[in-house]
């Protein structure tokens, strides 16, 4: 890195034009991602962004790093394999609320408890955007869409609470319209050693425009909140009146891939010795 010039935003932009509707919250997440990479001066070839399927999951095509546009709900398994095989790289996983908390629900708790050093970003618009406005697992109870025309009977899931309950070692929330904060949280998440979960409120202007509501409800973490206190974090996560942004929880514990690489000083495979044991 010493010889090369500092990286700028242009170094992270691709030629692929974002497909998002004008005003979509996902633009904010994209631009904060670009900015976080610049601030961290991570070389594009040393970063991998995995994603699932959805409007939000198209993001990797718009960032000039390595990318994996995976399958619906499967960003975390892809990111996990990448990070375990290549602990030297910075690995991120992006997805929507449907992607990470409907079809992908089964992977999130395991990625969290394993503490693989991945930064997971859930772009939550409380709707299935790409398939044109069906109720999502974060849609509020009673929400009417064509998939629940008489109102959804389901209680929404709480992504922050679930991440906390699953053992994530870093949990935060941001709002796509507040770029600076979002960029800072992305940086913190990437710098955090271990699994970082960032819940981003990212409105869908086409189908459920929540900007006004969020502008009203979004609020900083209470100043006295201690992010090392899991119980306090969970209590804060269940309060419904406000949408708190900032770091809910942060702690350090051993990282999966380091543990897995600590048992042996690796040698080549010795076939003869192996067969001799049988």
């Amino acid at each position, binding site marked *: 890195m010493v010889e090369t010039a500092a990286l700028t935003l242009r170094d992270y932009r691709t030629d692929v034009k974002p497909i998002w509707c004008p005003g979509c919250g996902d633009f904010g997440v994209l631009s904060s991602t670009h900015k976080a990479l610049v601030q961290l001066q991570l070389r594009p070839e040393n970063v991998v962004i995995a994603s699932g399927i959805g409007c939000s999951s198209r993001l990797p095509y718009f960032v000039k790093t390595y990318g994996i546009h995976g399958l619906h709900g499967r960003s975390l398994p*892809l990111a996990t394999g990448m990070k375990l095989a*290549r602990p030297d790289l910075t690995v991120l996983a992006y997805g929507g609320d449907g992607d990470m908390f409907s079809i992908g629900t089964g992977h999130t708790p395991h990625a969290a408890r394993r503490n693989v050093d991945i930064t997971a970003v859930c772009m939550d618009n409380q709707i299935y955007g790409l398939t044109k406005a069906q109720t999502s697992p974060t849609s509020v109870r009673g929400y009417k869409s064509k998939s629940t025309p008489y109102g959804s009977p389901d209680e929404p899931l709480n992504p922050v609470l679930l991440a906390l309950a699953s053992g994530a070692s870093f949990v935060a929330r941001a709002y796509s319209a507040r770029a600076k904060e979002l960029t800072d949280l992305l940086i913190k998440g990437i710098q955090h050693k271990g699994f970082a979960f960032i819940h981003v409120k990212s409105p869908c202007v086409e189908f459920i425009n929540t900007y006004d509501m969020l502008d009203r409800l979004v609020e900083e973490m209470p100043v006295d909140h201690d992010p090392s206190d899991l119980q306090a974090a969970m209590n804060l996560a269940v309060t419904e009146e406000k949408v708190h942004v900032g770091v809910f929880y942060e702690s350090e514990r051993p990282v999966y891939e380091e543990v897995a690489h600590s048992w042996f000083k690796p040698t080549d495979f010795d076939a003869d010795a192996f067969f*001799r044991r049988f």
Partner: protein
Amino acid sequence: MGKSEIIIRLAGEGGEGVISAGDMFTAGAARLGYQVFTFRTYPSQIKGGPAWYQIRVSDKSVLSMGDGVDVLIAFNEEGYRDHIGELNKDGVLIYDPDTVTPDGKGHTSYPVPFNEISRKKLDFFRGKNLVVLGTMSALFGLDPGSLEGMVRSRLARRAELLTKNLESLDHGYNYARKNIEKSDPYYLAATEKISRVVMGGNEAVAAGALAAGCRFYGGYPITPATEIFLTLAAELPKVGGVCFQAEDEMAAIGSVIGASIGGSKAMTATSGPGLSLMTEFLGYATIAEVPCVIADVQRGGPATGLPTKNEQSDFFHAVYGGHGDAPRIVVAPGSVEDCIYQTINAFNLAERYQMPVLLLSDQSLSHRTETFLPPDLSHVRLEERLTANGAAGAEFARYKLTENGISPVTIPGRPGTYSSPGLEHDEKGAPTTASKWHIAMTDKRFRKLDLAAKEGAASPRYGVRNAEIGIIGWGGTEGAIREAVDRAVAKGYKVAALHPKMVHPLTKGEIEKFVSPLKKVIVPEINYQGQFAHYLRGTLGIDVVRLNKYDGLPFCPGDIFQKIEEVI
């Protein structure tokens, strides 16, 4: 003077020592230089239910479980009833008079009170398997000193159990010497002590993976594939690799694909239910052109089906499964030793053609033990995917339309980034719905498959040159087919067999050449539908005589020999 070969079957209940007595006899026989081929089956639960273990032991090479049974050791009444019908004419029955009452018809039979000896005499019921082993050693000529050595090395770390176990072995041996007047011909002549590998198919797949350079495994336990995972869990960390227990099979194959994009040679192993769950990701590996190996150890299906029984009924899914036009390669090993080579082959094919490669093993192959000379892998050729460095700071045209369909790939950490797509894409991997790209990329993906067919290695062929009856087999039935062919040729029948290892795509020319002079082609398979036979007809228009078996057990050479005589 004795027979050069014995087929021994132990039958009883799961958890009674049937399997462990069999395993130890096998290990002991191999130590003494005999060649061994085993088969085992047991219920899919931890305790109880019918279990049996068959050992074919010989001073010559053995390729299958053989025909019938020379010696039946019945641990309980059910074990006697279910298996006595398969005892050969000269066969011997050994039974515990406490639990089995033979109907006394025909066979030589020796009562041995295994339960009484272990429970009452020794007050060590867990030693019953060693009492059985001792008796077997006395009756069939395995040197007891050598067996003792084996027991000692097995229990090296559990000294407290050693004395009791050796005592059990002794008692079994002495009981037989004193009380049984041997009137059967089964006694193994001493043989040359050659050190052989004694291994099962799952361990052999793991060995092949390690030798091929596999450094990432992502898996989820499932019978009968689990030992591939467990062996690699112990071995991969030693060679700098990672063995990852995933939360389910989607995560398993997802992690494998992630690791492979990261540049690792990576694999997973599963059985039918897990393979079905991996279907969507198989298509992803096809469209994103990610090299990876998926071992499927087939069991009885559908659904949870018969987890501990043998079947070759995942062929259809391996070749045709998954939505869309999704080419992939399917490889099937024929024996335990071949598991090593076909696993290496699978990795080579995956790397060369940048696509998912399925390795079809089966329950019998995975859990049977074969003996073979330590393989020399030092000259095995290993393929590595075609890589490139892109220009620094530039996006890389990862899916370049080349003549043979293979495009160079960049690896994270190297300049020349790209995004691996599950959507149809242009040369840079960017999504597009334009007709021309879907056509071009579909063509490209199938060009690679065609190339694989063209470059495919020659298949083993057995039997006479001027054959009139042919057999085309696939997978773990190879040994039984080969013995059947030998027997037929010995009888003067004009028979030959071809056993392709890459079962999809087929090396068309070779098969047509094999088939064209034949009057009839038999395709033996362990499934109901004749899946490979159907595929052969669909692909090459070749009509065959089907030989299907779907009772959960492997072929005996006699099954195939009989069919040969039928069609001749």
